[in-house]
C-alpha cells in the first residue's frame, strides 16, 4: 500500500475559458521534499495554492495521509466548513510575500494560529512559538514587528509560524522570490535544515541549485501539465522531455 502524505489526482483549474491546470497528479510521501519548477504561468503556484484550497480546483481529488479531502464548491466559491479549516490548519503555508500580520510581533504572529485555531493555552503557545523561532534563528528578534525585520528575517518568522502548528506538510510558494539576493541564502538554509529534519514539503521555487540539493522529487510544469517528474538527477541532468531540457539549461545559466 502506498502511503502518501499528501496527493492530488487529476487536478484541473480554469479561470473562465483559460485552463491553468490540465489534469495534474502529484504526491509527496512522508518526509519527501517535492519541488515544483517551471516558467512563470506554467501553473505551479496555482497548483500549490490548490493544495490548501486557497484556490478552488475546478475538479480533482485531494488526499491527506491517504484520507480524501472533501470540498464543496457553490457558485464558484468554496464552502468553508470546519473540516476545511481543520485541513488547512494541518498544512503550514509560507507565502512569497511573507504575509506576516503587520500589527503583531514575530512571536505574536507565530502564536496566533496556535491560540486561535488550534486552541492551545497561552503558555503552550508561548513555549511552542519560542521553540519555532529558535529553530529559524530568530529568537532574539521575537518581539520585533514585521516592519522592523529584514525580508529574510520576515520570511524566517513566516516559516516559524508555519512550523509551529506542527503541520503534516509544509507548503512554500516561491519563498525567496521577494528577497534581495543577499538574503536568499539565510532562508534557503532554514528550509534545508527542515528538510533534513524529515519534514514533508512541497515547494515552488526558481532556485534551481537549491531545488537540486534539497528535493527528493522534482516536477517540471509546463502549460498546466507535468512534463517531467523524477529525482533531481533525472530532471536536471537527463530529462526525457525536450521542454524540460530547454528550461533546465536556460534556468541554470
Amino acid at each position, binding site marked *: 500500500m502506498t502511503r502518501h502524505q499528501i496527493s492530488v489526482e487529476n487536478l484541473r483549474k480554469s479561470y473562465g475559458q483559460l485552463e491553468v491546470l490540465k489534469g495534474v497528479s502529484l504526491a509527496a510521501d512522508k518526509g519527501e521534499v517535492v519541488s515544483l519548477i517551471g516558467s512563470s504561468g506554467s501553473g505551479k503556484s496555482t497548483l500549490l495554492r490548490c493544495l*490548501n484550497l*486557497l484556490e478552488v480546483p475546478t475538479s480533482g481529488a485531494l488526499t491527506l495521509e491517504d484520507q480524501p479531502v472533501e470540498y464543496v464548491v457553490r457558485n464558484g466559491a468554496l464552502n*468553508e466548513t470546519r473540516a476545511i*479549516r*481543520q*485541513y*488547512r*490548519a494541518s*498544512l503550514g*503555508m509560507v*507565502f512569497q*510575500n*511573507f*504575509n*506576516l*500580520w*503587520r*500589527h503583531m510581533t514575530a512571536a505574536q504572529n507565530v502564536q*496566533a*494560529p496556535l491560540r*486561535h*485555531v488550534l486552541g492551545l493555552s497561552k503558555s503552550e503557545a508561548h513555549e511552542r512559538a519560542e521553540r519555532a523561532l529558535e529553530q529559524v534563528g530568530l529568537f532574539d528578534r521575537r518581539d520585533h*514587528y514585521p*516592519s*522592523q525585520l529584514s525580508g529574510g528575517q520576515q520570511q524566517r518568522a513566516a516559516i516559524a*509560524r508555519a512550523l509551529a*502548528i506542527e503541520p503534516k506538510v509544509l507548503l512554500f510558494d516561491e519563498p525567496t522570490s521577494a528577497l534581495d539576493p543577499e538574503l536568499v541564502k539565510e532562508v534557503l538554509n532554514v528550509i534545508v535544515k527542515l528538510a533534513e529534519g524529515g519534514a514533508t514539503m512541497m515547494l515552488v521555487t526558481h532556485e534551481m541549485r537549491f531545488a537540486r540539493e534539497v528535493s527528493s522529487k522534482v516536477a517540471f510544469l509546463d502549460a498546466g501539465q507535468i512534463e517531467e517528474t523524477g529525482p533531481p538527477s533525472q530532471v536536471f541532468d537527463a530529462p526525457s522531455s525536450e521542454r524540460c531540457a530547454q528550461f533546465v539549461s536556460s534556468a541554470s545559466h
Partner: protein
Amino acid sequence: MFELLSFGDAGWGDEISRGLVTTLILAVICFVTGTFVGLMLTLLRRAGRFSRFVVGAYVTVLRGVPELLVIYLFFFGTGVFVRGVAASFGYTEYINLSGFFLAALALTCITAAYSAEVFRGAASSIPPGQAEAARAFGFKPSKAFRLIELPQLIVVALPGLGNIWLILLKDTALVSLTSVAELMRQSTVAAGATFRPFTFYAIAAAIYFIISMFSERAVTAVERRIAITGER
C-alpha cells in the same frame, strides 16, 4: 457678563450647561452607534451583489442630501410612518416620539453612512495577503476579521473617524431647529430672552471650539498609541 452666566434663576449658566451635556450625550451616542452601524454596513457590502447595492444606495443617498434635510425628514417623517404602521395594526392612539430620540436616530444614520465610506477606504488599504494568511492557517472568518483585519482597519480609519466625530459634534447644532434642548438651542433661547445674541452665540462658539480642540488632541494621542509599530 458673569451675571448672565450665573446659575439659578438670574443667569443662564445652568441652562447652557444642561445644553452642553445634552450635546455631548447626543454626539457620543450617535458616534458610537453610528460607527458601529457603519462597520456593519461595510461587512454587509461583502455579503453579495444585492446587499452591496443596497448599502451603496443608502450611503449615496445619505451623503447626497443636506444633513439638515435628513434631520427634518426623520423628524417629520418618522412619526407619520410609525403611526401609519401602528394604525394598520389597529393601534390608533397618538404615539409621541421624543425629539431627542429622532435627532439621535437621524444623526446615527448620517454617521453610519459617512463612516461606512471611511471603513471601506481603510479596508481596501489592507493588503489582501493579510486575510489570505488567516484563511491559510484555518482561522474562522469571524476570528480573522476580529483579530487580523479589525485592528489594522481601525488604525487606518482613525483619522477619518476623528473627522466624522468633529463634523457630528457640530451637526448636533442642527438638531436645535427641532427644539431638542442642546447647547445651540439653549444659546438661542438665552439670546432671545436677554437681547444679547452676540454674547451667547460667542459663548456657544467658544464651547464648540474647545471641545473640538480637545477631541483633536485625543485623536492624535490615540493615533500615536495604536499606530502599527515602525510604520508611519
